[in-house]
Structures are given as structure tokens and as C-alpha cells.
């Protein structure tokens, strides 16, 4: 990481304001996790250790809907594959080994990779700075807001009275919305919705969600 004296103001402002905005999502996560039956400790550990928004929501969503730990883990892991692809892009830029590589891996998420790639025109040192600042910034705010959300929700006895049960599908639709870029994305979203609803009464909880990954594989295999 670059020494503090050389931190570029524009990059820092971009990274930290993004980190704060993204961090506020964790309010919804913290509250929804408690409503799904996770403890405050488990909720915090998900934000500290799993640290990938969509996967975290998937874990609590699947368990909250009555799914098994295995289906929750599988859904979360399928959503986490993109982080591996981000790692591939970041490796030549970061050039880190040992403990720094472990830290870099943990904060390799949508936002840190996105900012780093966006700084491409401004050189590799700005890319590195964007990655570390955004990654650490999101990590900090994400975990703070998780605790605030979890603590607020832990005083609530009936989640429905506070709309927490509706906050989860709202969070998921907000996560998928920006990904609906092409016609194929929209067809896939609609067919995944249909498949999940049709199989819900038939399959054990959680499996209707995982089954839709098959649609993604089928489409990705055939389309070009």
C-alpha cells in the first residue's frame, strides 16, 4: 500500500464516499439477519468473514425461508464465484504476497475491484490506492452498519410489524436490478422467478433457488 502522504485526494474521496454509501446497505443486512434467526454474533461474523453482500443476504434468506445450512452455503458460494474472477484481474495490479495477499483476497469485492478498474487511465499506483481504500472503507462501514442494524432489530419481536420480512426481497431486487442489462438478462430473471415459484411447493426450501443456477449455466453455455 502507498504511504499516506501520497494518497490522491480525488481517489480517496471517491473510495470513501462509495464505501459509506455501500456500508449503509449493511443496516438492512444486520436487521434482516436477526429477523431470520441469526444471533448478533453470527450476524457480525458474516459481515467480518464472509464479507460479500449478495452472498450474505443469500445465507440469511435461505435459512430464513427454512432451507438447510447446505443449501444456504451452496447459494452463497455460487454468488461468490465472481469474487474469484475479480481476484484474477487484481493480481497483476496489486503484486502482493504473504499476509498482504490474504488481506487483499478478503477485500476483493464488487466495489474495490470496480474502483481499481475505473482508475486504469491514471496509472497502476492509483489503481492500487483505489482498491485498498475502497476495500478497507467498505469493510469498516459495512461492519459498523451491520452491528447497528442487528442491534436495532434485536429489540423487535415481530419482524413483519416493522417490514423486515419485506426488506429482504426489496434488498434482493435492488441487487439484481443493475444487472438486468440485456434482453437475455431479463429473460433469465423472469424464467428464474417462474422456476423458483413453481418448484417451491415441490422441492425442500432452498433448492428452488439453487435450481435456477442451472438456467444460468444453460443460457451461458448456448448464448454468444
Amino acid at each position: 500500500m502507498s504511504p499516506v502522504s501520497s494518497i490522491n485526494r480525488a481517489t480517496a474521496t471517491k473510495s470513501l464516499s462509495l464505501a459509506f454509501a455501500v456500508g449503509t446497505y449493511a443496516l438492512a443486512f444486520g436487521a434482516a439477519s436477526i429477523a431470520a434467526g441469526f444471533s448478533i454474533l453470527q450476524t457480525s461474523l458474516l459481515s467480518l468473514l464472509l464479507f460479500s453482500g449478495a452472498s450474505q443476504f443469500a445465507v440469511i434468506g435461505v435459512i430464513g425461508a427454512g432451507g438447510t445450512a447446505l443449501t444456504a452455503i451452496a447459494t452463497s458460494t455460487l454468488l461468490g464465484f465472481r469474487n474469484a474472477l475479480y481476484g484474477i484481474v487484481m493480481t497483476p495490479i496489486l503484486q502482493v504476497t504473504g499476509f498482504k495477499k490474504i488481506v487483499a483476497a478478503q477485500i476483493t469485492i464488487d466495489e474495490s475491484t470496480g474502483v481499481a478498474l475505473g482508475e486504469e487511465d491514471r496509472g497502476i499506483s492509483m489503481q492500487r490506492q483505489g482498491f485498498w481504500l475502497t476495500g478497507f472503507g467498505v469493510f469498516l462501514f459495512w461492519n459498523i452498519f451491520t452491528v447497528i442494524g442487528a442491534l436495532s432489530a434485536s429489540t423487535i419481536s415481530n419482524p413483519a410489524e416493522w417490514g423486515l420480512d419485506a426488506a429482504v426481497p426489496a434488498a434482493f431486487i435492488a441487487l439484481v436490478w443493475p444487472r438486468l442489462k440485456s434482453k437475455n438478462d431479463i429473460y433469465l430473471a423472469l424464467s428464474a422467478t417462474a422456476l423458483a415459484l413453481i418448484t417451491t411447493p415441490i422441492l425442500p426450501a432452498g433448492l428452488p433457488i439453487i435450481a435456477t443456477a442451472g438456467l444460468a449455466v444453460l443460457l451461458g453455455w448456448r448464448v454468444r
Partner: protein
Amino acid sequence: MNKFWIATIGASALAFLLKFAGHSIPAKYLNNARLQRINGFIPVALLSALVAVQAFATKRELQVDHRALGLAVAAFALKIKLPFPVVVGAAAFASAIFYRLNN
């Protein structure tokens, strides 16, 4: 260990392994166009399925209730490009009001 702990630890461990693998596996094994495409589609499918199940399923039964109203409000908020916390907050608020009026 109950399922909450297994899910928390298991999902966290695998998430880190995937992140670390990306920083360690030679790019040629994952830089395949088809794999990249599938990887782009997977979140669309899973997140859409999660929207449907979270909004319309209770255990293994389908039902349209206060959550559906919340989802409609969220979709409208996204359509007019409101930021994430507002989208979730508005959905929760609408759903809570409807629930309280009916229970």
C-alpha cells in the same frame, strides 16, 4: 452446532477460499469466455429466485401478502432511481403499514 453456525462458518470459509483462489490460480484456468458468461448470469438467476421466494413463499406455500406490496414499492423506487437504503426503507415501511392495518 446448529444450522445457523454451520451456515455462517461454512459460507464464510468457502467465500474466502474463492477470493483467495482468484489471487492464486493462474488466469488461464478461469479466463474462458463461456465460464465468464455463465458467471455473469448466475447472480441474475439466483437473485431473481431469491426475490421470488422471499416475497411470495412461506415455508413451502406460495402466498401474496404484505411483502408483495413492499416488493412493488421497491420496484417502483428502483424504476425512479432512488438509492438502495431508500428502496429498502420504503418497501419495509409500506409492508409494515399494510401488515399492521390487517393484523
